[in-house]
């Protein structure tokens, strides 16, 4: 796919967030990703549009999984195609940060002894 996006871009930066098998000190067996149908999609598009205006990149893709996931499963993909690599890195990073703080998505973890909602998000690092 990367090679079919024309020849005016020179840089592709991408990020994949993957489900880990540990959180807050507890082993996590699986997870359910809940979203708000309609609002979530709109906000993912808004994140792309905001970044596009800021960085003038050529193309971007944001995909977020919903429903049940298991450790090792990819949860989120952000990919950016630009002419310059600085813009690709900056836009990709900004978009994943925006997604985490703005997109209506919630995680419920299944532990060995029950379920729990993830209550807050990591702020980045």
């Amino acid at each position: 796919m990367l090679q079919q996006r024309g020849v005016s871009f020179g840089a592709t930066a991408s990020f994949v967030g993957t489900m880990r098998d540990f959180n807050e000190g507890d082993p996590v067996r699986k997870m359910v990703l809940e979203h708000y149908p309609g609002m979530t999609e709109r906000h993912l598009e808004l994140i792309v549009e905001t970044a596009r205006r800021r960085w003038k990149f050529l193309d971007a893709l944001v995909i977020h999984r919903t429903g049940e996931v298991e450790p090792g499963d990819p949860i989120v993909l952000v990919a950016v195609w630009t002419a310059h690599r600085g813009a690709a890195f900056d836009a990709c990073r900004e978009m994943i940060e925006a997604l985490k703080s703005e997109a209506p998505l919630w995680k419920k973890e299944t532990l060995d002894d029950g379920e729990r909602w993830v209550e807050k998000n990591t702020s980045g690092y």
Partner: protein
Amino acid sequence: MSIRVRYFASLRDRMGRVEETLAAEGLATVSDVWKAVGEGKPLPEQILCAVNMDYADPDSPVKDGDEVAFFPPVTGGQQRAR
């Protein structure tokens, strides 16, 4: 003549319902809607709200036909790394 109210994630569990429909009379703001469904208590600061799928404030106006949603802080993206 009605406002649809939806709940998500842990708040849905706490409310014990997915959605409900209120008569619009007397509901001018998001805050009014919350008071109507939340036993008169003020909207907790950490609860987020949306009107017609856009983020809103407690003071945001609501009108007949609107969809109002309440939900906890979002936790999408990569899992917390700890």
